[in-house]
């Protein structure tokens, strides 16, 4: 009796179209991606009807968190060779008599996120490698009138990069007192123009309804 031969080959799926599609999606994502910056504090920005996009460079971003801490971020300018970030830190170190070493300046230059800690702890912060220990150090930039480091940061940033624009990114629940304080400090430093970072939300107005 002849044995029934079972097909030994497993069914074959042609994966070529799938691979094609994946490549297209991957290429698209790689080309369009702008990495989302990790933030030291979660911030839920309020919405507005404004459609202006955030500028790509020359920004000084003030992050106001829900628990009323102030964080600060700069960018390296239109060209990374300009090295605005290390220069700002160097300038800041001069004001507070802190000498930053070359690796520390480099570390600050490429640190992607906002910083929010007193300047005297900056050295420890930059030398710490552990992310958790770093986060624990971030207690917000001092803004009280006796120890107004935010004003100095702004001054240094504007010395290094005169074209810098102030952007404020605040949580919708941030108390107004801290916002007012920050605006006052900026006004003291002759910064009167701000960009408030918001998310887009459309609003419809019915003119006919208003007319009646």
């Amino acid at each position, binding site marked *: 009796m002849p044995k029934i031969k079972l097909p030994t080959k497993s069914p074959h799926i042609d994966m070529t179209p799938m691979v094609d599609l994946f490549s297209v999606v991957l290429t698209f994502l790689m080309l369009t991606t*702008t990495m989302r910056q990790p933030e030291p504090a979660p911030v839920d920005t309020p919405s507005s009807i404004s459609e202006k996009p955030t500028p790509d460079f020359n920004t000084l971003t003030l992050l106001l968190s829900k628990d009323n801490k102030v964080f600060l971020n700069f960018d390296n300018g239109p060209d990374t060779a300009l090295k605005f970030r290390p220069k700002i830190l160097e300038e800041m170190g001069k004001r507070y008599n802190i000498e930053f070493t070359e690796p520390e300046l480099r570390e600050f230059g490429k640190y992607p996120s906002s910083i929010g800690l007193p300047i005297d702890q900056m050295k420890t912060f930059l030398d710490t490698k552990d992310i958790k220990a770093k986060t624990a150090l971030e207690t917000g930039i001092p803004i009280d009138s006796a120890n107004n480091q935010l004003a100095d940061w702004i001054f240094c940033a504007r010395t290094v990069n005169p074209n810098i624009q102030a952007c404020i990114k605040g949580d919708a629940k941030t108390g107004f007192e801290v916002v007012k304080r920050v605006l006052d400090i900026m006004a003291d430093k002759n910064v009167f123009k701000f960009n408030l970072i918001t998310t887009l939300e459309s609003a419809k107005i019915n003119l006919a309804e208003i007319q009646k």
Partner: protein
Amino acid sequence: MAEIIQEEKAGGKKKAKKHAPHIDMTPMVDLMCLLITFFMLTTAFSKAKIMEINLPEKIKDPNAVPPKIPGSRTLNIILGPNNKIYWYPGTVRPEDYNNLPPLNETDFSANGIRPLLLERNRALFKKIDDFKNQVLTGKISMPPDSVQKTISRMKTDDDTGPIVLIKAYKKATYGNFVDILDEMNICGIARYPFVEIAFYENTMVEKAAGITSNAVPAATPNKK
């Protein structure tokens, strides 16, 4: 999904293969899946938007006189606690400090402050809206830049609309502040300076919101 390539043996004699050599694509697909997932999770698709705001310059010279504005055109908006807005028209004269006018209460919803602002700003808003419609329907064609410029010129030329003074009580939030500025943009208000809250306005808000304050009000009234 790995496939097994089986070699067929027939009597020790090797058959010449007929089909093209097969490349196993599974690891490549695996890697691609991984990369796609990574990029999809880290990509920020929509860029954050910005809203521009100009603050009035600080008058550092004590002898400088602040600019005068007609009281009839002013509308005072005070951001209160618990997402409330308090407003009153005109100004409070120094002789009324003991007899403060009542505040009107409203909120940030579409039926709150918006009809009030639009009512007062109707002429300018209609002008801007007509212009925008004409651009949209193609009656006027111009680049977006000059559309913005024309609108801002309309706002500067305007001399009938309200001047909204925005003030914030200390319990207000940043969200309230952005919302009210957004409301000004929606309603096309030409002038909306953000000014410091006066001591009597603090009292008025506390009275309206039922907050008891033990802070002693400042002795010298702020000059308007």
